[in-house]
């Protein structure tokens, strides 16, 4: 790849470079399919998939190395909107989106779709309220905006604190996911897999900062979207659901509703999962049964947390600092959402197909209602049973698998689907590479957000403003390694599940940052004291509420459980910020002029010509 060519020609050549890359990747997939036909073992193909893709990302990271501040922090502010959209989509879609989302919908039904709605709708807030204005501001990091708009080190430090708490919670879940996939594909212990995953992540980001992360994320998006869509399209055509599965599964949703009644969902007595198989669940929630009242409230509050969290997560916002102009930043948000949409509107289709295959007695793949003996003879059942992610327990001893006797981990839906449908192993290898790309790209963005905030806002802006460029960039890299290692250490302790940690990260971010960011642009009167109160009280209240509900046994207020604590935190943040702002004096004329400047696209950035 021609990363050494002059600036202009590299950017102009992007479509060609990534076109070649995509073609090369498809040829690699075909080559693997060929190897499989020649009798190469499934394990070897899995290893080749993961190793080859990581090698490519590392090579891009190496070619993008830089010692310039502008390139390191904001990729030289020249990333075209469509490519930044792809990079953001990869940055955004984590191991949780790729691996766990379809499984969550499979187990949780309609209620789980709140994540799908929330994780897309948040981009409307990003585009309308935030991204273009932050781009005009010309900052390197999100705390840089808070620190300059409101002035003073306290505001900056608080923003750094919220960023670190939210992003670190998130990144441990991602390193956990890379470790899980690396461990499975490369057949190494999980604890080793975590460190191996971290090594891959650091190779992508350390030498080139934002520039390297941008170009690897584009490459990772291409791998992950191919890996997600190919199996679904293939399966849909093999099983006769039609050419374009996303539009054709309406009948399947209705059919599942009938089958659920037939197999006794909701009337069967719950059976305990085998004790030595942790985390397994039997299907107990209807696929499409939205409730009203409390159930509807839970749906919209979860969606609201995910949306406000999206618009406050620094690793996403900072992607829009890399575009050439304000217009390009805005445009880029729309493209990001489009690329995210491609995966998110496919996940419910995947969950529906998989469920139908397991439930429908007319399909050869069905499991429920078959004899235990014939089900245990299926290859995919045996394989997942061996690794303790799936189990059958014939509780009533009638020799037939009932719905309440079939247990699996939700996470395996995406990974096991190609096997359920009987697709060749090469597809499973592709899916593993896709999951790895999703987890790595998000971890990259998060680690960089944390390290950049600490090196730019804490070290350069507060501790040593006279530090020379070289020293700043070395500090940034040392921090990247230290934080990555801390993340891997926490991940290897397996403290929380992937989904719980992800939802918390969103709630932390919205509790502390949403209103100080929005009001910084949209309310000229907002001042330093207000922002400090908003961040401190928002984060403090949110954290207190999480602790009380999750560990101290407090009854949640109106159904706001630990996944939704951001609602409480953000409300406290808004009220305290408005009240304190109105009680203290308006910001000075200089600050107000700065806000005026942020509101129009034309002219130099507020922080100086970039």
């Amino acid at each position, binding site marked *: 790849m021609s990363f050494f060519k002059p600036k202009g020609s590299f950017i102009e050549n992007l479509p060609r470079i990534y076109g070649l890359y995509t073609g090369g990747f498809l040829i690699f997939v075909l080559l693997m399919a060929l190897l499989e036909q020649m009798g190469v073992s499934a394990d070897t193909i899995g290893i080749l998939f993961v190793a080859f893709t990581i090698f490519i990302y590392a090579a891009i990271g190496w070619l993008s190395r830089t010692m310039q501040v502008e390139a390191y922090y904001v990729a030289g502010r020249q990333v075209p909107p469509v490519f930044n959209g792809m990079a953001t989509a990869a940055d955004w879609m984590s191991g949780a989106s790729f691996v766990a989302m379809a499984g969550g919908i499979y187990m949780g039904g*309609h209620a789980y779709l709140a994540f799908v709605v929330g994780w897309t709708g948040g981009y409307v807030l990003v585009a309308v309220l935030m991204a273009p204005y932050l781009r005009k501001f010309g900052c390197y990091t999100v705390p840089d905006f808070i620190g300059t708009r409101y002035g003073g080190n306290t505001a900056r430090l608080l923003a750094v604190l919220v960023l670190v708490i939210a992003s670190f919670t998130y990144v441990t879940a991602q390193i956990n996911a890379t470790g899980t996939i690396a461990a499975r594909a490369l057949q190494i212990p999980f604890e080793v897999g975590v460190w191996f995953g971290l090594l891959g992540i650091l190779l992508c980001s350390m030498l080139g900062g934002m520039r390297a992360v941008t170009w690897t994320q584009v490459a990772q998006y291409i791998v992950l979207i191919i890996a997600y869509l190919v199996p679904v399209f293939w399966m849909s055509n093999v099983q006769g659901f039609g050419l374009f599965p996303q539009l054709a599964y309406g009948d399947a949703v209705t059919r599942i509703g009938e089958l659920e009644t037939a197999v006794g969902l909701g009337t069967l007595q719950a059976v305990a999962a085998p004790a030595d198989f942790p985390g397994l669940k039997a299907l107990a929630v209807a696929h*499409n049964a939205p409730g009203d009242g409390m159930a509807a409230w839970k749906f919209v509050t979860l969606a609201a947390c995910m949306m406000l969290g999206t618009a406050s997560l620094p690793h996403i916002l900072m992607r829009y600092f890399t575009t050439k102009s304000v217009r390009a930043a805005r445009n880029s948000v729309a493209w990001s959402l489009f690329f995210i949409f491609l995966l998110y509107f496919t996940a419910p289709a995947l969950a529906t197909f998989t469920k139908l295959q397991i439930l429908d007695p007319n399909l050869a793949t069905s499991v429920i209602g078959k004899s235990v003996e014939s089900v245990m003879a299926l290859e995919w059942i045996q394989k997942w049973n061996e690794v303790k992610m799936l189990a059958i327990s014939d509780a009533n001893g009638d020799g037939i698998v009932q719905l309440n006797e079939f247990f699996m981990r939700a996470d395996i839906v995406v990974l096991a689907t190609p096997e359920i449908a009987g697709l060749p192993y090469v597809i499973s290898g592709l899916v593993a590479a896709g999951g790895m790309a999703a987890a790595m790209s998000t971890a990259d963005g998060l680690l960089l957000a944390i390290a950049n905030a600490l090196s730019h806002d804490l070290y350069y802006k507060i501790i040593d403003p006279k530090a020379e460029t070289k020293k700043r960039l070395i500090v940034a890299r040392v921090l990247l390694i230290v934080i990555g290692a801390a993340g891997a250490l926490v991940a290897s302790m397996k403290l929380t599940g992937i989904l719980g940690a992800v939802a918390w990260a969103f709630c932390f971010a919205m509790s502390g940052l949403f209103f100080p960011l929005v009001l910084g642009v949209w309310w000229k009167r907002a001042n330093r004291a207000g922002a400090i109160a908003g961040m401190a009280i928002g984060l403090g209240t949110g954290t207190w509420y999480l602790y009380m509900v999750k560990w101290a046994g407090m009854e949640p207020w109106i159904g706001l459980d630990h996944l939704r604590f951001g609602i409480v935190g953000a409300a406290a943040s808004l009220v305290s910020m408005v009240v304190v702002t109105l009680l203290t004096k308006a910001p000075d004329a200089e600050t107000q002029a700065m806000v005026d400047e942020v509101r129009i696209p034309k002219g130099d950035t507020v922080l100086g010509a970039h």
Partner: protein
Amino acid sequence: MSDNQQREAHWNKTRNLMIIHLVIWFVFAFVVHWFAKDLNSSTFIGFPLGYYMASQGSLLAFVIQLFVFVKQQDKIDRQFGMAEDDDA
């Protein structure tokens, strides 16, 4: 108009556009899902409507909305001479 008046008019239009888009967003993000149970009694291209909105309909609305928003905001910026140069 003076520069200040231009800026003020530009910001007024920008703010109105923001409000319009947040209303649309609110409808697709919350209102339709609040009534998911009722919507499920109708069907759309073979889907129960409540399920369709949560799995595709709202998502599609957000995507279309953003591409329209980009065009509208750019038009406002140009109308008041607040847009960046085209090669920027």
